């Protein structure tokens, strides 16, 4: 019926992501791993910006907090990665919740500026609190090992990242198609109406900040393990622009859009690395095109052109179907008679 519907396309992509990497060389494996990490970042950011409508700029800082927390817990306290990593995610989520508290009463530009200020402050802490963060030079994290599993570190980390990306992708898709997700969208589209229906604005804004912080924190932990190294420059304003570009290109307010945007931008940046200066030009042009002409992002295009890409904001059950009742049939008939 609709061979290119979303589910089919995603399953094929997943199959490729599972089968091909063992045969790929180190570099391709590295890029694939990067894609999985950025998918997590883009999904978290899209929940906050695309769905909940909070123009926040702290996601790169959250990414950094996840990376630093995971790395420092290993280096400073001697924890194993397997403990430090989830704790790092939780710390980033907690920081996300904490910064949401002052941000909750701010909207639009004011929210943007205050979260930007927070991001800059975080950057400053990474750079200058030498006693804990090792300062500008960054630090090496202990080598990760998947013993006793018979799998190399790069491949093991890739599959771990893929697993988390898939699980958290599904989690996000369920989340946005539920009463919680609809509360997010309600407060984006009309906060007055949302409140009048009993949606507690502060609570749902805080939740969106917390969830996006957790996604960014998990991505940060994976990134620290991928590079075996943590340093401040990876979590600066350019990182933030990169993530925003992913959700704009993929599609604001779309989980699958976050996936497509992250994949395309990471791969594009790698391909263009060969030619000096081209990265910036193509990247800029892409942003301009999408902002000016393709507001819905790639997903908007797919929804219009390909069947089966709709993203209903509810759990579509087969049991509840329109039993065309008599009233509605008469209504439909009168409507036809009118036109």
């Amino acid at each position, binding site marked *: 019926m609709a061979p290119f519907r979303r589910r089919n396309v995603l399953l094929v992509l997943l199959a490729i992501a599972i089968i091909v990497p063992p045969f790929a060389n180190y570099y391709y494996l590295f890029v694939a791993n990067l894609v999985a990490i950025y998918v997590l970042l883009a999904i978290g950011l899209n929940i906050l910006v695309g769905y909940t409508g909070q123009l926040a700029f702290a996601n790169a800082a959250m990414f950094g907090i996840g990376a630093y927390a995971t790395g420092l817990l290993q280096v400073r306290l001697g924890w194993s990665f397997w403990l430090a990593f989830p704790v790092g995610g939780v710390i980033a989520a907690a920081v996300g919740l904490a910064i949401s508290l002052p941000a909750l009463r701010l909207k639009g530009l004011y929210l943007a500026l205050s979260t930007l200020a927070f991001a800059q402050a975080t950057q400053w802490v990474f750079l200058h609190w030498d006693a804990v963060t090792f300062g500008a030079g960054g630090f090496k994290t202990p080598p990760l090992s998947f013993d006793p599993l018979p799998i190399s570190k790069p491949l093991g980390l890739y599959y771990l990242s893929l697993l988390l990306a898939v699980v958290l992708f599904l989690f996000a898709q369920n989340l946005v198609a539920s*009463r919680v997700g609809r509360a997010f969208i309600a407060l984006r*589209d009309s906060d007055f109406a949302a409140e009048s229906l009993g949606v507690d604005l502060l609570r749902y804004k805080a939740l969106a900040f917390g969830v996006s912080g957790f996604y960014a924190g998990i991505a940060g932990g994976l990134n620290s393990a991928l590079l075996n190294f943590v340093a401040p420059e990876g979590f600066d304003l350019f990182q933030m622009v990169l993530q925003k570009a992913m959700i704009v290109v993929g599609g604001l307010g779309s989980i699958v859009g976050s996936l497509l945007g992250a994949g395309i931008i990471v791969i594009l940046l790698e391909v263009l690395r060969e030619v000096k200066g081209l990265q910036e030009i193509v990247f800029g042009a892409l942003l301009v095109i999408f902002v000016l002409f393709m507001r819905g992002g790639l997903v908007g295009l797919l929804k219009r052109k390909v069947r089966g890409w709709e993203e209903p904001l509810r759990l579509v059950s087969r049991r509840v179907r329109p039993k065309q009742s008599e009233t509605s049939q008469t209504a439909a008939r009168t409507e036809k008679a009118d036109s």
Partner: protein
Amino acid sequence: MNTGLLSVRNVHVNFGGMKVLQGINLDVAQGEIRGLIGPNGAGKTTMLNVISGILRPQQGDIQLAGTSIVGLKPSQIAELGLGRTFQTSQLFKGMTVLENLMTGLHRRTRGGFLTAGFNLKLRQVEEEQMEEQAWRALEFVGMTQFAERTATELSFGQQRVLEIARTLIGEPKVVLLDEPAVGLSATRLIELDTLLRRIRDEKGVTLILIEHVIRLVMEVCDQVTVLSSGSCIADGAPQMVRNDPSVIEAYLGKELRARH
């Protein structure tokens, strides 16, 4: 003293030095349709904003079913059973008609974000119930054929009706309607008239209606309260109010005299 389902006692609101509401009293009984009229700037919308918790009065008390709601957040007041619509369309434009209605059931459902994200049983059960109720709400207003449309694709009149339906689906005790008839054609107006009566008679919901279309107010309201410059100048049955000299003077004057 508490009379009626919604009772407003001596409410004062100032914006800076401007006295927008000066000691308003209002008692609305269960099952009543109350009209709230008055010239522009009389304080009608301020009144709704105070009741629904968007504004906090400097003085006075408001009780809903015997509970004081002054100082509560709008969402808490909604939880206690107060619904409202707005002067301009406040539909969620990123959602379909059905999803808008399901959002109206927010306060009737409980599933948190883990329940949702991990697709636990509670989410599945609630989603199914919500969708069923949304279909029933669409049947009530005769709009089932628009279920899957984006909310903003509807005509102006349909958007107004959908907004009322979205408020009603959460089964509030009292609903505040801010100019539901604005911009409606004559036919639509008759439909709205019928709908408001059905809401009162079939759902037992108490309605408070701000309206400039005087004919609708006179026909549909059981009681009418007239505000002028932040004070209540008349209160009573529509017939009584329309003949009250102070009301005619304050506001209705030209239109009604011309008709007599």
